[in-house]
């Protein structure tokens, strides 16, 4: 499953980031790496982008990009 499948308030652990290298590199530099706890906080008023939380800070990313983050539930 990917992070998009989580509802606001739910959390999981990062498994792998697929897709373009730029996206993967940037997310990894921010600490979004295998095993990191990650949760969905809320969605933007128009339903996209979504806000995720990891390592104590909030990030906004588009659903299209969020689909590339695969997670496992705890």
């Amino acid at each position: 499953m990917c992070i998009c499948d989580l509802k606001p308030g739910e959390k999981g652990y990062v498994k792998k980031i697929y897709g373009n290298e730029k996206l993967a590199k940037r997310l990894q530099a921010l600490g979004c790496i295998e095993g990191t706890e990650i949760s969905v906080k809320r969605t933007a008023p128009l339903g996209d982008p979504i806000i995720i939380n990891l390592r104590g800070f909030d990030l906004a990313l588009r659903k299209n990009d969020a689909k590339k983050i695969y997670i496992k539930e705890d």
Partner: protein
Amino acid sequence: MMLKKFTSRRTSMITAALIGNPNVGKTTLFNSLTGAKQHIGNWAGVTVEKIEGYLNDNIKIVDLPGIYAMDTYSNEEKISKQFLKRDDVDVILNIVDASNLERNLYLTTQLKQFNKPIILILNMIDAAESKGIKINYDILSKKLGVIVVPIVASKGTGIKKVKELLENSSFDKLENNILEFTTEKETYSYIENILKGCLTRNTDSSKISISDKIDNIVLNKFLAFPLFFLSLFIIFMFTFNLVGQPLSDILDKLFNDSFIPYLNSIMANSSEWFRSLIVDGIVNGIGSILVFLPVILTLFLGISFLEDSGYMARAALIMDKLMRKMGLSGKAFIPMIVGFGCSVPGIMSARTLESEKDRKLTALLVPLMSCNAKIAVYALFTSIFFKKYKALIVFSLYLLGIVLAFIIGIFFKNTIFKKNEEPFIIELPEYKLPDIKTLMIHTWEKGKGFVKKAGTVIFAASVIIWFLQSFNFSGITDMNSSFLASIGKFINPIFIPLGFGRWQTSVSLLTGLMAKEVVVSSMGVIYGGNLSILLPQYFSTLSAYSFLVFVLLYTPCISVVATMRKEYGNKMAAFSVAYQFTLAWVISFLVYNIGKLF
């Protein structure tokens, strides 16, 4: 672990590079270290600001852009990397957010690879402490092989210590331990390990943070847009109604009613061409720049407030879905809206966007938003040709600009900016009350740049246009027989298919390059009489509308072109001039010729 001597070559001048993540208080620290002794420019070849300042005569501090890492392919990262590799960089000042060390130290581990001494500045320790975070600075310093200084930049705490370290070159005593990691995972486990030994966290995770509470309101499905538009409305009220524009108007009035008559009177005995050069050319040119300044400063104060408070990231989030359709990120909405007032601050506020592609595309689209100056032209023509439908006609023009911006945006997105698709990842920083000093300096920096750089170009162009409209081969003359009139007659044929091929109209459009409202005053001079009686002899209702469409879209005024050139270089300025002229011609042509069928 390998120990190595540092590679810097000490000259009499110490150069310190200031670097850190976005939203960690870098600007505040930079300003308290350097004060007013700053120099702002651009890094060669990219539209990334380069800011240098001096702590004293011997210590230079270079403020590098806010980045999260060195290797994720952005221009900001490339220039930082190139700069840090230079031999004359003696020390790296790495500012980090004390309450978010894990992520912040990622950049630090990459900075270690440049083999320079690092002073790690932990900012906002007060906020970290109130979150229950305790850090043992000595252990952190030893483990990382850096000097650690805790500060609170907004309150000035710890700044003295940073200054002393630089003044005494205390960082020379450090020895480097080179860190080599192959993956981000390795880096993060290294960081996690270090923090285990020196950081304790005592947080009550059940407590909802203040930022979350604010977000519950600000990002609420129903409240988000009303609040967003309300905040924009307040800023625009300040800029265009309450503070900025009134100050500009006062300045304009003082200038035109007092200073220019005064100049004219003291120059009464000089020869006419000389007086005209000074007053109509040079002083008028400079005046037209200065009267922009209050508007620009007020607007930037508002925008800086949105940014420093943390709200701008939320605004970007709210607007992203709509703006994405035209190839832009949500943040680009603000420059576009500002463009309705004036394209100059609109283009300048585009510099707050993250990627170069976003900045350029936004700057190209901003002039399509119908600016205030064009209202003068709309008012004149609608009162003559569209008495019953004034508001509707003007509204249609604004709407046309917006629709075209969308179409052109999609077009550019799929053509010239095709290769530059950027992932949209933005941090939503915690809300905070902006620091007034930083706000002020932030605001003034932009204004200063405008006066200096755009100023010289506007000034030169004003003198050239003045020359063209005051002279012909036999010397000084009136506008009707000037060089400008000859040029107007020469280019006139290209306007015939648009329905307004009269040389008088061409000349007034040419003078409109000075400022769009000048189109009206030029028409007054050239037609030489009551325009409401004269214009219907030259325009039909349809050609009047076609003309208005042309005025809406054609080549922006020189202030805008100068700003474009200052921010993005000659190529972009030339492209903007060319594409808007083409666009204006094509759309006016379509309006006129399709209109003729009915």
